[in-house]
């Protein structure tokens, strides 16, 4: 048995109707047990859709196809609805982007946490309450017994996000998907939440997938980084390698936008914007790429493995992954 907890191969997502739009194309990745995988990409690059599709939580009209999506030996796409509900929250949990909307305004915090416990462990009311107190304490909420009786509107944004993390951990999942958990928060609170999730990951041996558009954040916390662009994986590399030597021009441009020590010519503080269309021929990044050639505009590059642990999809790379002579 491999060490990978999650293996996804050939995941594509399209949205329905007569004008079918391909939103995610042929995404493959692996997550090793206990590691932190970062998925980075701009809005609309398909990061969140990819994650939601794994739990089959896509909105109506979206259609996901996959060659293989294996979570701990089980195929997520062939589970019965009942088995799928047992996986959600119990094996794979999600922390959503906006804690304001992720909590039900008319239920107390305690009710919402114990719901999860009663669902997955059939706990008695008293046990669930005890456990909820522990969970709240564990995510750093002072005075849990009092807080359990309060409603979401009585919590600040950062505290609410702590609550949603406590809810996500209530099912004692092995994989935590953090879908931009800090985007809706104040900068000062963001760091606290990141530190909290990192601590929980360490203490509970969690595997975490960070979905974010904040590359600087991933530099601190991720073991591996998956760079997505227009619904495709354009680069997948160990974090150290990606930040030292990004292969794909998009990854380089992203990195250049946050790094002050980059060589002057690479310090692309902005990437020229063009409407990215995942359905078009050729490399989706070509219209914005400074190094695009004719080949890039006609044929889409495939992901190739470089140096054993890095994948990138760019025509400008030669066989050992160096920048090709043409650039």
């Amino acid at each position, binding site marked *: 048995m491999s060490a990978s907890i999650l293996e996804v191969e050939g995941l594509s997502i399209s949205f329905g109707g007569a004008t079918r739009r391909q939103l995610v194309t042929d995404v493959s990745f692996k997550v090793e047990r206990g590691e932190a995988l970062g998925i980075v990409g701009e809005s609309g690059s398909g990061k969140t859709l990819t994650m939601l599709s794994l739990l089959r939580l896509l909105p109506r009209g979206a259609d996901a196809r996959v060659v293989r999506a294996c979570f701990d030996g089980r195929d997520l796409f062939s589970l019965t609805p009942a088995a799928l*509900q047992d996986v959600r*929250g119990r094996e794979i*949990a999600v922390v959503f982007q*906006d804690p304001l909307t992720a909590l039900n305004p*008319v239920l107390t915090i305690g009710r919402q946490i114990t719901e999860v416990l009663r*669902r997955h462990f059939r706990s008695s009311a008293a046990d669930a309450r005890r456990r909820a107190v522990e969970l709240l304490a564990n995510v750093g909420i002072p005075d849990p017994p009092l807080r359990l009786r309060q*409603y979401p509107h009585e919590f600040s944004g950062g505290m609410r996000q702590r609550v949603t993390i406590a809810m996500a951990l209530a099912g004692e999942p092995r994989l935590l998907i953090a879908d931009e958990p800090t985007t809706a928060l104040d900068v000062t609170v963001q760091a606290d939440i990141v530190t909290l999730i990192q601590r929980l990951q360490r203490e509970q041996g969690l595997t975490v997938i960070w979905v974010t558009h904040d590359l600087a954040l991933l530099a601190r916390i991720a073991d591996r980084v998956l760079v997505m662009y227009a619904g495709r994986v354009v680069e997948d590399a160990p974090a150290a390698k990606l930040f030292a030597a990004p292969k794909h021009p998009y990854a380089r441009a992203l990195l250049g936008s946050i790094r002050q020590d980059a060589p002057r010519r690479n310090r692309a503080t902005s990437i020229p914007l063009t409407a990215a269309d995942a359905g078009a021929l050729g490399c989706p990044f070509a219209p914005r790429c400074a190094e695009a050639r004719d080949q890039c505009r006609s044929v889409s590059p495939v992901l190739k493995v470089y140096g054993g642990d890095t994948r990138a999809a760019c025509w400008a790379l030669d066989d050992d992954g160096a920048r090709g002579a043409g650039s």
Partner: protein
Amino acid sequence: MKFLASLYRSPQTRTGLILLTFVVLVALAAPLLAPFSPVNVDPSGRLLPPLSRVLASSTQGAPAHAETALHVLGTDSVGRDVLSRLIYGSRLSLTVGFLAVLISAVFGSLVGCLSGYWGGWVEALSAWLIDVQLSFPFLLLAIFLLGALGGGTLAVVLVLALGTWVNYARIVRAQVLSIKHQGYVEAAHATGAGTLRILFVHILPNTLSPICVVGSFSMALAILTEAGLSFLGVGLDPSTPSWGTMLNDGRDYLLTAWWIATMPGIAIGVTVLGVTLFGEGLRELLDPRGLR
């Protein structure tokens, strides 16, 4: 306790609560409060104005040692004590109103919930039912059904429920349609909650405050309609002490014995006002964002 305390805080709700509590207590304690039997006829004491005294021997409900008995609100066309009938009538009005609201709220909310959540044929079917229901003038339908069913308390309750469930169904459906796309419903899905849990734990509580509003005004409406149906003679049996039948009795004597119809009218007004004020307060309270 905290719940009642916060209900008590707003002056409006407090008024509603006091009125409603008063009516409920009167209904519960009817046998203790009523000075006479509500059904006893007294041919010698017909159409007595309020505060009339009669000989105690002519009534069975009065204590034996009393020389005379007082008809505080007078008597009606066959000599029944208006106050006693009023007191006993509160039982019927409240029961009918409450049961009608309970049945229609449960059924209507369920239909609204399911059709809003699932859509498809469930929604098509319920939309069809609602349209059919709305295309009938309610009073006509009620008169027709009660004529066919033959009146009685249960029949009146069912007919009232039949007339009002669409209100709940429509409101709840609209609520569910917007709630089911909220982040917390998606989040609940992500924690492995099944359909029933989503519907009854996460969605339904969010629709409670509009249900309360509709509930309170339909209860008021149910009490009024029951009175109306009894007034028209198709509701409760004329000998039953109900506010509606009293109105019906009193209508011929409006000019000569005004108290027979006026007293139940006031009782209806007070109860409806209490229910409406209380319902409004309940709605505010059920929305936790309004607490504090």
